[in-house]
């Protein structure tokens, strides 16, 4: 049996870390949550991660920084950004930055699924 693709979540907000993995499992993914970029990089799951749900503003390494770091390591994992701050304008900026989808919190399960599918299809 093929194991479900792993989606990793990096967010400093506990609510997201608790709720998102359950939702992702409902979608049929495997899910792991990390409270910081550093924790994710140290987890050894970077290679296995098929898609990354990434909070933009975090203490320590921010979401876009983590994405750049992964690009530098030539581990281009598709990313879906999520953020609690920001408006339409900054969302466009993020798209320009990484070409990745960006969801504004709170987001619906449907839009999350669509973003994940889009991100996985690109790669």
């Amino acid at each position, binding site marked *: 049996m093929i194991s479900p693709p792993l989606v990793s979540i990096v967010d400093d907000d506990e*609510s997201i870390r608790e709720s998102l993995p*359950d*939702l992702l499992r*409902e979608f049929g993914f495997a899910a792991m949550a990390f409270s910081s970029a550093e924790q994710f990089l140290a987890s050894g799951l970077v290679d296995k991660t098929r898609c990354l749900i990434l909070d933009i503003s975090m203490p320590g390494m921010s979401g876009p920084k983590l994405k750049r770091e992964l690009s530098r390591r030539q581990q281009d994992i598709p990313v879906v950004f999520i953020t609690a701050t920001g408006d339409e304008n900054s969302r466009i900026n993020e798209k320009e930055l990484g070409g990745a989808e960006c969801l504004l919190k709170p*987001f619906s399960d449907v839009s999350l699924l669509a973003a994940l599918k889009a991100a996985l299809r690109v790669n």
Partner: protein
Amino acid sequence: MIDNVERRPWPGYVAKVSAVLVIMLGAIVLLGWIVKSPPLIQLLPNLPPMTRNAALCFGLCGIALLTLVIDGPRWVVCLCAGSVAFVSLTTIIEIVFRVDAGIDELLGSSFISVNLRSPGRMAPLTAVCFAFSSVALMLVPRPFTITSSLLVGLGGSIVTAFGAAAVVGYWGGVTLAALHTSFGLVILGVGILALAWRVEAHPMPTPPWLPLSVVIGVLTGIVGLWRALILGGYAPFSILPTVVLVVGCVVGPIFGLTVFLAQRGNAQATALRRSETFLQEAQHLSRTGSFSWDLSTDIVTFSAQAYRIYEFEAGPISFASIARMTHTDDMLLFLDMASRGRRGEDLDEEYRLCMGDQSVKHLHLVAHQCGANENFEYIGAIQDITDRRLSEEALDQVRSELARVARMTSLGTLTASIAHEVNQPLAGIVTNAGTCLRMLASDSPNVEGARETAKRTIRDANRASEVIKRLRALFVKNAANNELVDLSEATREVAVLLSNELQRSQVLLRTKLADALPPVLGDRVQLQQVIMNLLMNASDAMASVNDRPRQLVITTTRDHDNSVRLTVEDVGVGFLPDEANRLFEAFYTTKNRGMGIGLSVSRSIVERHNGRLWAVPNSGPGATFSFAIPLSTESPLGVGGGVGDGVTRGPNGQHAAGKL
């Protein structure tokens, strides 16, 4: 003295004219000798002729004088004047020692010998005059000094006086020199005198030797006249020569004194003019005019700059015409100032003028009373401070604009901050609810999982509600209570409230609270909010500290400047010195979860109590936050004083910020 020499133009012209006349005289007479024309040489047959040497000397002296006036080459002067000196001195030696040096007929034998003692020889007076002239001309240095011009002037005066005496001497028939020689000498003397006059050194407008020179000149002339009278047959101390001598001796010094007094007056007038010019220039530069106001006549006298400020035509000014210029809005102020002036008070006021073209001038007037009793007047200064006022107004405008922009920016930041705080739990709620639905909607509903997500939904919703509550607590406008607050006691209460929280965060709280601290007047709850905020900040700052005890020290003391101070010291992450000011900006935060409002609101509360709140980084790890509240009997909290406005800084805000 030597530098700073100014030359007046007219003595130069006089000297030039003299030089030209003398050269012409010498040339004409020499021509007369060459063409053997007695009228040119002796004018009248019974008069003594002008010798060739004298004519030559006139010519040479004239050339030397002219060369000096036009600043010609020095060697010309020396050559001409030197030759004259040689000729005249040799002649004097011949006369004195009764010898013939053979110089008299150097230019050819004399064919006219009317009244000449020896053929071709100059008269003694002529020789002496030429000697003086030539020496004086050679003395003229470049540049002029006062001493040399004194000597030159003396020489010129003597020659003039001798010449004049010789002219006068013809009436007694005592003069041996030719008539035109005498006139020539007068002209030459005047020319040399004029040369001396050219020099003018600061700060003396006229040469100081002049009075003396006048005295000597007059006396020499008188002595010459006296001598001429004696030669003319008067006994030395008969009436006429004695009268001439006595009158001359009295008149000479009087002339000298007169010239001296005139000079001194002139010098004073010049000094006054200079000082007046300085004053006017200074008034112009500083845009300050002066005035006097005679209260008995109501007539106002303006300085030139005051006329310019008021844009008045020159002429007498009445008090009413000044009052008319005053800006309508400042009329009451002006009239009040005037009435105080009439009572004899010193004045220091700013008011505005409304000019003819409707432009407004800002003036600063300072005046004080001079003189005694009813007859006093005001002396004062008015300064045009329009430019300063305008730039101040522009500055104020920019400042308020800046404040407005800052407020708007803060508002935007506030919105973003609130959005962030609320969106986090909302995201959890939506995700949990979505998950819950999906869990229940599947073929085999995951009820246990759904229950779990529902619980989390409730928890996140509570969290959101907490955020809203916190915001309301910060922003609600509570009516402020005025009561006597013992800061030590208030701190103790907060410490008890927070003890559980601090224990959980593994913070060791040490309190050093002063006993019998004088109470401050203010709102107890607000001050406790500030204390709580400082304690929680300190605790948060130490959350990541694991290598040392998380020690928090809270101190209350009475300060020397009659205020009570509370200090919270932590060993946390601290802040950089250049962050010190930003700490108190609304929405500035170093925390991951903070909204950056606490310190800003705390400062606003403290400032409403007329106190100040500041922070300094510790020399070791951590930071120290303090606030001080003055002991005052007056109520610091005005009507509607609350915590609502977290952005506004109190009047002490700048001061406190400067302290950091």
